[in-house]
């Protein structure tokens, strides 16, 4: 597949927007937030340095959607192709995780699958790191390794665009006149940039380097008090699960719309008190610390056991979103210290 050069982003994005609806990151305050791209009014196009504030998951898994109707069954509607620009490696890997849940088994979610088949993903290298980024702990990188249609790397004089799928390759071939060949020197510049940011990332997280797997640490924390202690910092706002690009819990509820009954599918959060409560009233996660523990178990043990990958990409969004002092990295660090102490105690015994 091809790699090409373009000096400015706007003509490229305009060409995408000509074919389909396009969403791009817009700087709002300190953060990047997606908004619809309008070629005629958009003058400055930004290349987001790091991931957006709210993840791209909403494009595939909307906060609320109509899932069924009665008495007449819901007709699945056709989805038009659309493009999203500005995803980073962590975002691409979170989509891989969502795919496992919603698309890769015998029970596909038809709404997710329809959106997934029609999304055109334009990712980009990270040009710096966020203070809370810890993706390197999950083999994440500051540049995309796969899972995109097109990936963009910013260099001094322009942008290098790489195709990662037939769809992406097709786009390049269909817009030859926009692109130029990439000289070797520019590829070298890209590689240097990548190595530099990757290094920053590793420097940022030296404290979190464990000499064992997170799975082992978290699985052995079943009786740890860390969750209860840390839960005192949590104000139960559920922001962490909302901004998480991999959290995908939802619930179905029924309602009456104009002339028919509807079943809606809406985001839920395992941080909600009644999340696991059964009709009889029993609730295995009544205590907040237990819910936080479940969240960690799900992400680092259960999901891994089931699907073979962690359900966390280390994007740090939950850290940024948290209005209080709760920090996933702190919890993981405390758990690993506790685990190390336990192990050492066992050795000396």
């Amino acid at each position: 597949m091809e790699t090409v050069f373009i000096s400015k982003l706007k003509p490229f994005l305009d060409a995408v927007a000509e074919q389909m609806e396009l969403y791009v990151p817009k700087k709002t305050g300190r953060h990047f937030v997606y908004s619809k791209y309008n070629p005629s009014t958009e003058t400055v196009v930004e290349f987001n340095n790091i991931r957006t504030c709210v993840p791209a998951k909403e494009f595939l898994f909307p906060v609320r959607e109509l899932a069924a109707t009665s008495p007449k069954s819901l007709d699945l509607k056709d989805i038009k192709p659309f493009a999203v620009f500005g995803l980073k490696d962590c975002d691409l890997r979170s989509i891989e995780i969502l795919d496992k849940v919603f698309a890769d088994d015998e029970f596909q979610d038809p709404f997710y699958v329809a959106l997934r088949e029609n999304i055109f993903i334009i990712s980009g290298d990270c040009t710096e790191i966020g203070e809370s980024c810890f993706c390197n702990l999950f083999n994440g990188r500051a540049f995309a390794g796969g899972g995109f249609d097109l990936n963009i790397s910013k260099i001094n004089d322009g942008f290098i665009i790489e195709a990662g799928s037939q769809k992406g390759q097709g786009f390049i071939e269909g817009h030859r006149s926009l692109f130029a060949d990439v000289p070797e020197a520019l590829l070298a510049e890209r590689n240097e940039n990548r190595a530099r940011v990757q290094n920053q990332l590793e420097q940022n997280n030296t404290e979190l380097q464990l000499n064992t797997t997170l799975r082992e640490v978290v699985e052995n924390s079943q009786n740890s008090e860390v969750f209860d202690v840390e839960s005192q910092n949590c104000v139960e706002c559920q922001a962490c699960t909302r901004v998480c690009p991999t959290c995908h819990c939802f619930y179905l509820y029924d309602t009456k719309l104009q002339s028919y009954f509807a079943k809606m599918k809406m985001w839920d959060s395992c941080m909600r008190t009644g999340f696991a409560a059964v009709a009889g009233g029993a609730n295995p996660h009544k205590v907040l610390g237990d819910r936080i523990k479940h969240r960690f178990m799900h992400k680092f043990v259960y999901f891994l056991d089931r699907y073979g990958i962690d359900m966390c990409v280390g994007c740090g969004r939950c850290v940024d979103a948290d209005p209080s002092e709760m920090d996933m990295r702190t919890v993981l660090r405390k758990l690993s210290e506790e685990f190390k102490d336990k192990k050492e105690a066992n050795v000396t015994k």
Partner: protein
Amino acid sequence: MNQNFYQPINGQIVDIIDESPTIKSFVVVPEEEFKFETGQFVELTLPGVGEAPFTPSSSPADSEKMEITIMNAGRITALLHQCDKGQKVGIRGPFGNGYPIDDFVGKEIYIVGGGVGLAPIRSLFLTLIDRIKEFKSVVCRFGARTPDDFIYKNTLFGSWQSIAGVDMKLTVDEANNDWDGNVGVVTTILAQDDVDVANSAAVVCGPPIMMKYALLKLLEFGFSDENIYLSMEKNMSCGIGKCGHCMLGKYYVCKDGPVFTYGQIKKYPEIWD
């Protein structure tokens, strides 16, 4: 093509049977063909109101209609209890695994049940007695709080008592004047020599506390972890292993269960919470 598992099919409640002061059975006729295996569950929708998971209590062999026994225990179940015959409903499913009937062939089947847990057990029981010759025996040990609280009283106290190949014993926590059977929790009628443990499979379904103690008894009798089948209750929503509500360790109860062997789930600390 893309099947929408969230879409219920239409159905109607055609009959309602009062089983106990808090439990009713609803006879539901689906408008389209609907097949399930004993032990699988369905999501029953009250249109515009909500849905809840139930394991049908009727035999899968009855393809025309399905019976669903419901205890008045929460918002949706309370509203279902107020419904009359003719009520339109939605049905999604069936979901999850059923009881592994074929693995039971040639064995003694030891069924321990209590309360509304007799609902899935009734479906299993009806399935087993249809093929009773294929099993060495079916041994039932059922409990209820009081004689009134037993569901399916007519058959339970009547014809089910005298089926060849079936050994049935009942107990209540509190007797009344008409009761001449055992008094005590269900574990008081479990005995080591009820079955030939090495050649049996045990099925347990009931309130968590009952299941917990019945399980301990079965283990004490020498049942292996793999031969004890537990029906787990969780607050299922999607039914297809996506929404995250029914997690039990790495399992989705809706998809990998609701029937598990004890061996599958024993490492998870919260199974009876």
